[in-house]
C-alpha cells in the first residue's frame, strides 16, 4: 500500500479489516484492529515495524515505572509525618522527572537520529568547510518508518500525562499498542491523547449502520479533496517549483496559492479519510482542521490548522515553559522594565520561539522548515505586540473591528501571509524560497495569463475549471460548517432517493474528474513524510 488512497487500501485492506472486525467476537476485535494496523505498517515500512514495537513496549514500561513510583510515594506519604511530606514529595518528583527525562530523550532521540542525522551531518560538514577543517563526515542514509513523527509525539504525551497524573499508566499492552499504532492515524495523525482514544479502541463495538454510512461519506469527501483537487494541482506545482527561475512573479503567485490549496486538500482530505475510517470502528478521533482559511490572524489560523499538533506544542512545550521558574522570574522583571503589556510577552516570546523552532523542525530537516517556523514566530509575536496599538488605531479611524470590511481584510491578509509561508515550506531549499519570493515581488506580471503560459504548466483551462468547481463545493460546505450547519446530518435527514442520488453523484464526480490513471502523478502523502 502506498497511501490511504491506493486501491489496495480502499477496496481490499479496509473492507477486509471491517469484515473481519465484525465477524470476530467482541473481545477479539481489538486484536483484529492491532493485527490490521501492523499489516498496514509492514506494507509501508516493512521491517521498520520494529521501531513502532520498541516504542510501544518502552512507553508501556515507562508508564508503569512512573505509576509504581507514584504508588510507592502515596504509600509512604501515609506513613510519614506531615512535616516530612513535602520533602518526600520532592524526592519522588525528582525520581519521576528522571524517568520522564529518560523516556522523552529515548523517543525524541530515536526521532532525531532517524530523521535529522543527515541534516545535522550536512551542516557539520559545511561548518568544517567554513573553518577549513579537512574533515568530511559521511552522510548516512537512514530509512524512516512511516508515521514516526506522529506516534513519537503520542508516546511523549502519554509519558507526560502519566507523570502529571492526568491518566494512570495502563497495564494492558494491547491498549497501548493500539493507541500507538491504530492504522488510520499512524501515517498522518491526528495526534491523539491516550484518554481520547485508547479506551474506545479496545471496546470492540460492532460497526453500526450509521457509523458505516457516515464513515464512508467522510471518506468520499476526503477522496474528493485529494483526488480531484490535490492530485490535479500536482503537475503545475511541480513544474513551477522545480523551474521557478523561468517564470515571472504572476506564475509564482499562482503556484504558491495552488500549493497552499493542495496542502490543505491533501492533508484535510486525508484527515477526512482517517476520521471516516475510525468512525466505521466506532472510534471518534479529534478533528485536525476547522475551516482555517476563515482565520482573521495567523495565530488563529494555527489554532484551526493541524489542531492536534498545535495543542501538543501548547500543552507540552508552551505552557510548561511559560510556567517554569526562570520564565516566571523573567516576566516579573520584564513587567517592571517594559510595562504590563510587553512584560509578559518577553517570556511568552521565549516559549513561542521554542514552539515554532520545534514546529519547523518537526515538519522536516531543512533550513526552509526552520525558516517556516521562524516566519510564523515573527508573525505571531508581532501580532501580539501590536495588538493594543492596532486596536487604538482602529478606534481612532472609526473602523469597526467586527464589520464586514475589516473582517474581510483580516481574512485576506491572513491568507496572503499563510500562502507566503507555505511557499517557503514547499520551495526546494531556503535559497529557492528566497528567490521565488523576490521574483514574486520584483518581477510580478500578468503577462503569463494573457499570453497563455499559465495553461502550459500542466493544467489546461478545463483542469482549472474542475479545481474551481470542487474548491467552490468545499468552500460552501466550510461556510455552512462555520455557521454550525452540518451538511452530513442535513443529507442524512433527506429521503432515500435524494440521499442516494447525492452519494452517487459524489462517487461519479470523483471517478470522472479524479486526477488518476495515465498522465497523472498523484501527490505523495505530504504530511506522512514529516
Amino acid at each position, binding site marked *: *500500500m*502506498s497511501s490511504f488512497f*491506493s*486501491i*489496495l487500501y480502499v*477496496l*481490499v485492506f479496509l473492507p477486509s479489516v471491517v469484515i473481519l472486525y465484525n465477524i470476530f467476537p467482541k473481545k477479539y476485535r481489538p486484536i483484529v484492529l492491532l493485527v490490521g494496523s501492523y499489516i498496514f505498517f509492514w506494507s509501508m515500512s516493512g521491517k521498520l515495524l520494529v521501531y513502532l514495537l520498541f516504542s510501544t513496549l518502552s512507553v508501556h514500561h515507562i508508564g508503569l515505572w512512573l505509576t509504581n513510583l507514584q504508588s510507592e510515594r502515596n504509600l509512604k506519604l501515609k506513613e510519614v509525618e506531615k512535616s516530612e511530606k513535602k520533602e518526600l514529595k520532592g524526592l519522588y518528583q525528582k525520581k519521576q522527572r528522571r524517568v520522564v527525562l529518560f523516556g522523552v530523550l529515548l523517543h525524541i532521540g530515536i526521532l532525531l537520529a532517524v530523521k535529522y542525522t543527515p541534516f545535522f551531518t550536512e551542516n557539520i560538514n559545511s561548518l568544517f568547510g567554513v573553518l577549513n577543517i579537512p574533515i568530511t563526515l559521511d552522510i548516512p542514509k537512514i530509512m524512516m518508518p512511516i508515521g514516526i513523527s506522529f506516534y513519537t509525539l503520542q508516546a511523549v504525551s502519554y509519558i507526560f500525562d502519566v507523570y502529571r497524573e492526568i491518566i494512570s499508566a495502563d497495564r494492558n499492552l494491547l491498549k497501548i499498542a493500539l493507541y500507538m499504532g491504530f492504522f488510520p492515524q499512524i501515517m498522518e495523525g491526528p495526534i491523539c491523547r491516550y484518554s481520547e482514544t485508547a479506551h474506545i479502541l479496545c471496546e470492540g463495538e460492532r460497526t453500526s*449502520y450509521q457509523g*458505516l454510512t457516515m464513515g464512508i461519506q467522510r471518506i468520499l469527501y476526503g477522496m474528493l479533496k485529494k483526488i480531484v483537487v490535490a492530485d490535479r494541482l500536482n503537475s503545475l506545482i511541480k513544474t513551477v517549483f522545480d523551474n521557478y527561475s523561468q517564470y515571472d512573479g504572476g506564475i509564482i503567485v499562482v503556484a504558491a496559492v495552488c500549493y497552499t490549496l493542495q496542502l490543505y486538500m491533501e492533508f484535510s482530505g486525508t484527515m477526512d479519510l482517517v476520521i471516516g475510517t475510525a468512525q466505521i470502528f466506532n472510534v471518534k478521533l479529534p478533528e485536525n482542521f476547522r475551516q482555517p482559511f476563515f482565520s482573521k490572524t495567523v495565530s488563529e489560523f494555527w489554532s484551526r490548522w493541524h489542531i492536534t499538533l498545535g495543542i501538543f506544542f501548547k500543552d507540552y512545550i508552551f505552557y510548561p515553559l511559560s510556567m517554569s521558574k526562570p520564565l516566571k522570574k523573567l516576566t516579573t522583571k520584564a513587567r517592571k522594565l517594559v510595562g504590563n503589556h510587553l512584560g509578559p510577552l518577553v517570556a511568552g516570546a521565549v516559549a513561542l520561539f521554542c514552539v515554532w523552532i520545534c514546529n519547523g523542525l518537526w515538519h522536516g530537516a531543512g533550513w526552509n522548515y526552520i525558516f517556516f517556523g521562524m516566519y510564523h514566530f515573527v508573525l505571531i509575536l508581532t501580532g501580539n505586540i501590536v495588538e493594543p496599538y492596532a486596536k487604538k488605531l482602529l478606534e481612532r479611524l472609526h473602523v469597526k473591528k467586527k464589520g464586514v470590511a475589516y473582517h474581510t481584510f483580516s481574512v485576506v491578509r491572513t491568507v496572503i501571509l499563510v500562502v507566503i509561508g507555505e511557499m517557503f515550506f514547499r520551495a526546494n531549499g531556503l535559497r529557492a524560497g528566497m528567490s521565488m519570493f523576490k521574483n514574486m515581488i520584483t518581477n510580478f506580471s500578468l503577462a503569463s495569463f494573457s499570453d497563455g503560459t499559465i495553461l502550459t504548466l500542466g493544467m*489546461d483551462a*478545463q483542469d482549472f475549471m474542475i479545481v474551481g468547481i470542487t474548491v467552490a463545493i468545499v468552500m460552501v460546505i466550510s461556510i455552512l460548517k462555520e455557521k454550525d450547519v452540518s451538511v452530513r446530518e442535513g443529507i442524512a435527514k433527506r429521503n432515500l432517493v435524494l440521499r*442516494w442520488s447525492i*452519494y*452517487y453523484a459524489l*462517487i*461519479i464526480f470523483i*471517478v*470522472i*474528474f*479524479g486526477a488518476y*490513471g*495515465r*498522465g497523472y502523478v498523484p501527490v505523495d502523502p505530504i504530511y506522512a513524510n514529516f
Partner: protein
Amino acid sequence: MKCLKQILRCAVFLAGLVLILTVLHPIFAPKNNSEGSGIEDVSANGILSEKKNSIDVLVLGDSLSHTAISPMMLYKDYGITSYLCGSYGQYMYDTLRYLEQAFENQSPKIVLLETDTLYRRFNVTDAIASSIQCEFPVFRYHDRWKDITASDFKGDINYTCINDYKGYRGKDIVNGIPNPQYMVPTDKIDDISTLNQYYMNEIVKFCKEKNAELILVSTPSVLNCNYERHNGIQEIADKYGLEYVDMNLLAEEVPIDWEKDTRDKGDHLNHEGAKKVTSYLGKYLEDKNVLTDHRGDKEYAQWDDSLAIYMEKIETVFVGTNE
C-alpha cells in the same frame, strides 16, 4: 432482521453503482482507435481496425517485442499476417488484456509472447487497478470528459485507423556496444514473481481455450537477458509444455552485431537487428506448416497497400521513429 435489511440496502446501493458505471462506459469509451481519439496506445490498438479473422499470428510483450519483430516483413517474405500488440513497459496484466481483446475479433493460430514482460515486476495494487479498469473501462478512460461531445452519447464505435506497420516501432538509430558477453551459462534461475506466474497461467489457459499455440520468444537484448532468466523462462516453458525460442543463444541463426544492430547500447534492437530477428522468426513459423501464405489473396489486398507504404517509409527511406 434489521441487520439483514441493512446488508440488503448496501447490496442494492452497490448494484446501483455498478449499473451507473456500466452505463457510463459507452459514453467515455474512445469511439475510434486513432491518434486523438483518447485511446491508449494507438499502435497496439491498431489491431482493432484489422479485418475480422485476418490475423494469424499475434505478438505480445513490452518494447522488446515491437522493436524486434516486423509483421510487414513477415508478410513480405512469408505471407504471414501478424499483428504486434506490444506496448511500452507492458506488464503481464496488460498482456492478458491485449490477448483477450485481440481474440474478440481475431482467431490467431499462434501467439508469440516476448518474455521480457515476465520479469517486469508490479504490485497487487496495479493488478487490481487493471482488473477494475477491465470490468469498468470508465476508470481507464474517465479523463475523456474533456473531449466528450454529443456524439459520444450515441456510443457508436468505429475503428478506422489502419496501422501500416502492424504495431512495429523500429528505429534506424545506431548506438552500439562492443562484444558483450551477457549469456554466461549457469544453473542459477532468476525466479519469476508469483503475480507474473499467475498471469502466465491465465494466458496459457486462455490460449488453450482458443486453440492457439503459445510460443515464448526472447528477442536479443544485452541489458534485459541473461542465462538466469533463460533458465527461469525455460522452467515455465517446460511446466506448460510450451516451445521456447531464446534468440540470445542463437548467435549463428540470428547474427546480431551489437556494434551496429542496437539503438541504445544493447537495450533494444534497431531496424537492422529487427530484420535479422524477423527473418529467423519467419522461417521458424513457416516450418510449422500451420500458417497460410496470404500474398496475392484478394481478401488481403489491404495488406499489400500497407506493405507498399511500409516499404516506402521504412525499407527505403527510414527516417528515425515511425511511431
